């Protein structure tokens, strides 16, 4: 059991305004045929998912912000060790799209500078309520040199693909380095401390 069962470990974060569906991306519980009231009441802190890319077995540890974004208190502790960030907006809500720029600044300020980012336009199942065209999403992503994808957590469209692509981008980035699992094994077993933030940082 002491044998290492994977090659790499990537810590990924979900970032974006409240209500864009970050929690739904992590917590799929919707139209399942059973009621997981216990799990849905407590909520998911993080998930571990395994993907295989280019013959490497990669463990993804994916964290939600647990509502901290509501108070603009996403700080360095949350970003610590993050190798990839999913930046999420809601295609039916203009403000969440405008705030992407704020979040990018927040990431620049607090996250590791070589963190790999990806923008997700979520809720693409709600076409009739769409206010942000796919082209606008692509444009902002292109402007910042970031990958982009439209997703629907509700219908499970592009979610797994988005995580695979982000993981692949991290893999590309680390390809030059001698990245073994021990190197990637960052201290992520505990939730970042909830200490009061030094300042509000993205308003």
């Amino acid at each position, binding site marked *: *059991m002491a044998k290492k*069962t*994977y090659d790499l*470990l990537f810590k990924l974060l979900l970032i974006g305004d409240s209500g864009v569906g970050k929690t739904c991306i*992590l*917590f*799929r*519980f919707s139209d*399942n*045929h*059973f*009621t*997981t*009231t*216990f*799990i*849905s009441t*407590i*909520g*998911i*802190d*993080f*998930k*571990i*998912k*395994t993907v295989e890319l280019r013959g490497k077995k990669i*463990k993804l*540890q994916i964290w939600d912000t*647990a509502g901290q974004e509501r108070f603009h208190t996403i700080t360095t502790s949350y970003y610590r060790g993050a190798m990839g960030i999913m930046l999420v907006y809601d295609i039916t809500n203009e403000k969440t799209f405008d705030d992407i720029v704020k979040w990018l600044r927040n990431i620049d300020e607090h996250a590791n500078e070589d963190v790999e980012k990806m923008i997700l336009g979520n809720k693409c199942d709600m076409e009739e309520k769409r206010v942000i065209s796919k082209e606008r999403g692509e444009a902002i992503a292109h402007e910042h040199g970031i990958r982009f994808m439209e997703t629907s957590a509700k219908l499970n469209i592009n979610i797994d693909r988005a995580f695979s692509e982000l993981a692949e981008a991290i893999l590309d980035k680390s390809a030059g380095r001698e990245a073994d699992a021990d190197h990637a*094994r960052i201290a992520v*077993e505990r*939730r970042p401390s909830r200490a009061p933030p030094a300042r509000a940082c993205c308003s």
Partner: protein
Amino acid sequence: MSDSESVEKNGIEVSNEYVENGTNKLIVKCKFCGSKMLDKKSGTFVKQEKDLPLMQQETGKDAEVQNEKVNEFYHVENMYTFENIGFTHTVDNYKYLSCADCDAGPVGYYDMNTKHSFVALSRINHA
């Protein structure tokens, strides 16, 4: 959940058809969606009595959590041994384990003190 029971490793003499040499002979999967949680031979079979919240809670019964006693677990020392798994927020120094794909659970728990995970045999499928 009480901490009093010690983790007692079960020897080779296993009554359980899914256990071989003290570990899970087969892949551990979600009962509902089939998502792979543990690879073969990656959990150590242990017997310990624990109260685990029911997967389906009756609604309208105050805030009381309904538990059942569970006796058989796979012990997983390193959380990264899991193929796919969800961890809930912490409650009384435990996190509960859920399916990473359909969120069914709890299928077990994670002890914040020891950092070890325990998957209930009765809450998963073997394949």
